[in-house]
């Protein structure tokens, strides 16, 4: 299975009926494709919409209905729109149940860096800092390593997105949580051993006696 699909399918298992969910760009966007149709989840787009639907069919796009990247989307029955103050009030005010974001680094305490690489990539943080500061649950969906280098680090070397730790990290190799503030291996991806995860993890990981396979 494609590593990105493993991540998206596993993250989708975290969503519950009635949740208000904000998905970041990249792998997080794929999560919506793996939510069972009987599960009623509200997806927010931070440019001002709850009830985002799939990409419209050819010729059905409208210039006033877009996602946070400016791409055409559709709206589901029951959708609603609002201005950016309301949108970020929802985010910062703890009304968003789950946000799923991409990451550049997550450290042993669960701190996330995902908005800049000094001197190389300075696009701006957009809504990421508010989402990590305010959403009830923050899930990071990312590749475990980039070019063989672990993205689960002892301490973030890149600028932090928030001082508030994230709740869960789902990668192509593992699910990592932070019970009592300590990075802990919760699940391994199908066909991946604990040893293989450890070999690609810079941060010290607590290993419970039993580490189950990732639920997909």
């Amino acid at each position, binding site marked *: 299975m494609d590593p990105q699909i493993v991540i998206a399918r596993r993250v989708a298992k975290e969503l519950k009926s009635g949740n208000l969910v904000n998905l970041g760009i990249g792998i997080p966007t794929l999560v919506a494709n793996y939510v069972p149709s009987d599960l009623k989840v509200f997806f927010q*787009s*931070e*440019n*001002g*919409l709850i009830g985002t639907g799939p990409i419209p069919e050819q010729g059905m796009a*409208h*210039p*006033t*209905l*877009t996602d*946070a*990247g*400016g791409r055409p989307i559709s*709206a589901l029955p029951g959708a609603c*729109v*609002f*201005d*950016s*103050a309301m*949108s*970020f*009030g929802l*985010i*910062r005010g703890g009304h968003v149940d789950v946000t799923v974001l991409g990451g550049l680094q997550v450290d042993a305490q669960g701190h996330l860096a995902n908005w800049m690489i000094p001197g190389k*990539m*300075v*696009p*701006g*943080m*957009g*809504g*990421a*800092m*508010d989402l990590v*500061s*305010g959403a009830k649950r923050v899930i990071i969906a990312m590749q475990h390593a980039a070019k063989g280098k672990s993205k689960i680090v002892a301490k973030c070397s890149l*600028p*932090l*997105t*928030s*001082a*508030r730790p994230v709740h869960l990290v789902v990668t192509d190799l593992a699910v990592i949580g932070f019970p009592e503030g300590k990075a802990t291996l919760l699940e391994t991806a199908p066909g991946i051993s604990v040893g293989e995860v450890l070999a690609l993890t810079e941060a010290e990981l607590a290993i419970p006696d039993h580490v189950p396979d990732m639920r997909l």
Partner: protein
Amino acid sequence: MKAVSVEEAVAMIPAGASVMVGGFMGVGTPERLLDEVVRQNKTGLTLISNDAATPGKGVGKLFDQALVSRLTATHIGLNPKAQQQMLANQIAVDLVPQGTFVERIRAGGCGLGGVLTPTGVGTLVAEGKRQIEVDGKPFLLETALRAQFALVHAFLADYLGNLAYALTSRNFNPVMAMAADTVIVTAEHIVPVGVIAPDHVVTPAPLVDYLITNG
């Protein structure tokens, strides 16, 4: 509210003015006003806008012509020209978290000195800012943001200047319409008074100074 041509409206904006522009990645942006700003070559602008859109679209047109000297925004990663101008120090850029950006503008329009937000505490964003504890929780003091001009795009404007918006093109427009000395509006449709029901007016007419006429 006064109805004016786009040429007259933009002629009121001096070079070097501070200008808020509504829109999110070019969606809900007053394109006709921006085209005219480019045509009249208004240089040295201080731009307050969520993003830099993309080249050729929305506020991206202002970067195509290098009309911006200062920018306050939340994300400029999808406009390589804005990035180049920032890295070459041609524009001074202040990058602000999006929730902080909109609350600073809201504060500016609502007579507040600023807001206290948890966003950015313990990050680079906190540098040089006052941190204030409320009930044991740390917050950053983020000051209000206003501009000389707000350029706003609505879906409907009635003959009085009441405004309604469409779907995700609403975004920052209603908040910016509160936070500038002079508010200039373009609308997809100009309609008789009463077509927008009182319950559906988002921006009340007294906030609008100039409505750009059709044609």
